């Protein structure tokens, strides 16, 4: 027995499938081994062991440790106090080449060794270009944990953990590791789109990101999602509500007419008039759609042929004023109703109120992308995509914190659809997804890809998860409720980064997504420290318990929880609930009761003045 080898742990006593029982050596009672000047803790659940078999080394993860003998094994009774551990084998190495999977099994009395830094270097293959270091091993903080960036992006990943387990910090830290710390090497040409539901990341990643927001702060860009880039069915469901087949035809026919009219007047590159469909991303005016349809619905006619419109006033499409006709009358004199009317007045009224609702401005009145009545918009989709994806920062943050939850799902679905369609069809161009892959980070994913949230967003996320790999679009799903996430999407995530999770249903879902023999490792989930994660799957060579790098203080995501104690400890100052109601009615957080035109005098800058930033 090689008991003089400091890395020696014990011998194999039982093998069943991929699980191996090891009897620990008595010389390790202190629980600490010093190898090559580094201290290693022996027998930590989640740490690695090595079993040399001739030219090969088998590697495994410690899943369970006990102090009494493994009772199920027959044989001579072992003295009390003997320690054993159960190891789940994960892979093998020949020379410096590590592979997942096993070609042979260990046998009884084979020696088991602790995995040292040099062994880990073998597993992680040195400093390959595609490896990103994201943290350190929990058991040995001098060893960096590296993930394969290729597998992390293209095979998708999921970051799962309860509230307060350090999810946002982990996301910020991993993204920062990918794009490179400050001047350090990284991937300066990375293309990452982050859907930031709570507005936490602007402070954490602002220096490497371009930020879009529906309520832009100084230095941020306004977020617009032009409605005319959506599929007609999706758009109509939003603006007109439920439609019967006949009503849907009335709307889609009109949209098709408006789009082909627009195309005839001013051709768009790449689009042939004969290949135009109702779903083609061609600008058209929703006001015009509403006006033309309401005109047809409410028209009355006079004259012997019943073909003279009894128009009183023409109305105005621009201000959504309907045309007015002489009311119809019974008898033979008329005016008569339009017998071809489609019965869609209720839906048209909904369309009108949607167009007037300020909450939907970013989608229905998308700034420079809003077409006029002729369907001509100041900007086309190319500038929109260039803004989102083609700037000199590696990261784009879409801050959706100001979006009402009623439209959040639809908005995210629309953004993802626009981005995915564009990258899908441009896959043979240098800007496309294959030659410049895109990573989409989806925060709070359970809010929009759960079965309850409907299909608007989960359809496109499911498409990204299933086929995004081929077209260079990767997904990183971040959630605190893995049990609510669509199962197809979670099962497509090749890499799982699981932080502390206490809810049993959530843990079961995470366990279910892993290979059976590693589920023992996931029993650690409730006791992980904040910022500690178990990483398993394609990007990690071995399942590993990791401490993710903590970003610098100024690069931490902003936790936006109100400070209850300090707020309640102050005496209440005079409150004006008229201001509250004014903001509610205006659907704007910055609304005031009295619009005052106050002239402000400029104050010269003073030196050394310190103020809290939320004043």
């Amino acid at each position, binding site marked *: 027995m090689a008991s003089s080898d400091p890395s020696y742990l014990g011998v194999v006593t039982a093998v069943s499938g991929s699980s191996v029982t090891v009897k620990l050596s008595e010389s390790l009672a202190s629980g600490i081994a010093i190898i090559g000047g580094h201290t290693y803790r022996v027998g930590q659940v989640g740490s690695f062991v090595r079993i040399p078999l001739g030219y090969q080394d088998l590697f495994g993860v410690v899943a369970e440790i006990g102090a009494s003998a493994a009772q199920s094994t027959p044989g001579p009774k072992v003295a009390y106090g003997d320690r054993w551990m159960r190891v789940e084998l994960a892979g093998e190495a020949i020379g410096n080449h590590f592979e997942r999977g096993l070609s042979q099994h260990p046998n009884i009395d084979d020696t088991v060794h602790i995995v040292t830094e040099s062994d880990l270097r073998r597993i992680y293959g040195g400093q390959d270009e595609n490896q990103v270091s994201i943290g350190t091993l929990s058991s040995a903080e001098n060893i960096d944990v590296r993930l394969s960036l290729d597998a992390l992006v293209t095979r998708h990943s999921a970051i799962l953990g309860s509230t307060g387990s350090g999810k946002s910090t982990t996301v910020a830290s991993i993204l920062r590791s990918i794009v490179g710390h400050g001047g350090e090497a990284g991937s300066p040409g990375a293309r990452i789109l982050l859907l930031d539901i709570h507005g936490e990341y602007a402070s954490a990643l602002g220096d490497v990101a371009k930020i879009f927001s529906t309520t832009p*702060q*100084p*230095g941020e860009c306004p977020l617009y999602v032009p409605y005319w880039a959506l599929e007609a069915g999706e758009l109509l469901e939003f603006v007109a509500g439920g439609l019967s087949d006949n009503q849907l035809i009335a709307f889609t026919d009109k949209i098709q007419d408006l789009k082909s009219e627009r195309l005839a007047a001013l051709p768009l590159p790449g689009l042939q008039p004969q290949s135009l469909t109702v779903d083609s991303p061609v600008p058209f005016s929703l006001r015009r759609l509403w006006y033309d349809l309401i005109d047809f619905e409410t028209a009355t006619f006079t004259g012997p042929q019943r073909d003279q419109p009894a128009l009183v006033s023409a109305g105005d499409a621009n201000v959504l004023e309907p045309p007015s006709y002489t009311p119809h009358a019974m008898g033979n004199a008329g005016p008569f109703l339009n017998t071809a009317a489609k019965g869609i007045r209720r839906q048209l009224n909904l369309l009108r109120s949607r167009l007037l609702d300020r909450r939907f401005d970013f989608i229905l009145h998308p700034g420079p992308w809003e077409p006029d009545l002729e369907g001509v918009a100041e900007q086309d989709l190319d500038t929109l995509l260039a803004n989102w994806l083609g700037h000199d920062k590696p990261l784009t943050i879409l801050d959706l914190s100001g979006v009402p939850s009623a439209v959040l799902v639809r908005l995210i679905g629309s953004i993802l659809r626009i981005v995915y369609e564009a990258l899908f069809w441009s896959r043979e161009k240098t800007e496309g997804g294959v030659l410049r892959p895109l990573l989409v980070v989806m925060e709070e994913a359970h809010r929009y890809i759960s079965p309850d949230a409907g299909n608007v967003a989960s359809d496109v996320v499911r498409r990204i998860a299933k086929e995004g790999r081929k077209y260079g679009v990767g997904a990183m799903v971040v959630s605190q409720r893995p049990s609510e996430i669509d199962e197809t999407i979670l099962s497509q995530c090749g890499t799982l980064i699981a932080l502390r999770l206490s809810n049993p249903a959530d843990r079961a879902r995470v366990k279910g997504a892993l290979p059976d023999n590693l589920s023992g490792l996931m029993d650690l989930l409730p006791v992980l420290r904040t910022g500690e994660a178990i990483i398993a799957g394609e990007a990690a060579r071995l399942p590993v318990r990791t401490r993710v790098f903590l970003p610098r203080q*100024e690069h931490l995501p*902003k*936790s*936006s929880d*109100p*400070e209850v104690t300090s707020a309640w400890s*102050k005496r209440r*100052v*005079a*409150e*004006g609930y008229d*201001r509250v109601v004014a*903001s509610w009615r205006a659907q704007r*957080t*910055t*609304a*005031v009761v*009295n619009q*005052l035109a*106050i*002239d*402000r*005098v*400029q*104050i010269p*800058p*003073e030196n050394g*003045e*310190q*103020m*809290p*930033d*939320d*004043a």
Partner: protein
Amino acid sequence: MMRDTVASTTVTSIGYDEPTQTLEVEFSSGSIYQYYNITAFLYEQLMQAPSKGQFLHANIRNAYPYSRVG
């Protein structure tokens, strides 16, 4: 809320509307706040204070209702 004492925010411009006792302050971050029920006397004190930011912080910010307006 975390008080970020590293960031220094200075006041760029100040305005006052006496009939409604509203003080409007623009900070160098670009955000504009209105403070309500501010008497003309307090406003004059503010304008005479050597450091507007410190005066705002000490005497106005935690004592009067305010709202972000831009």
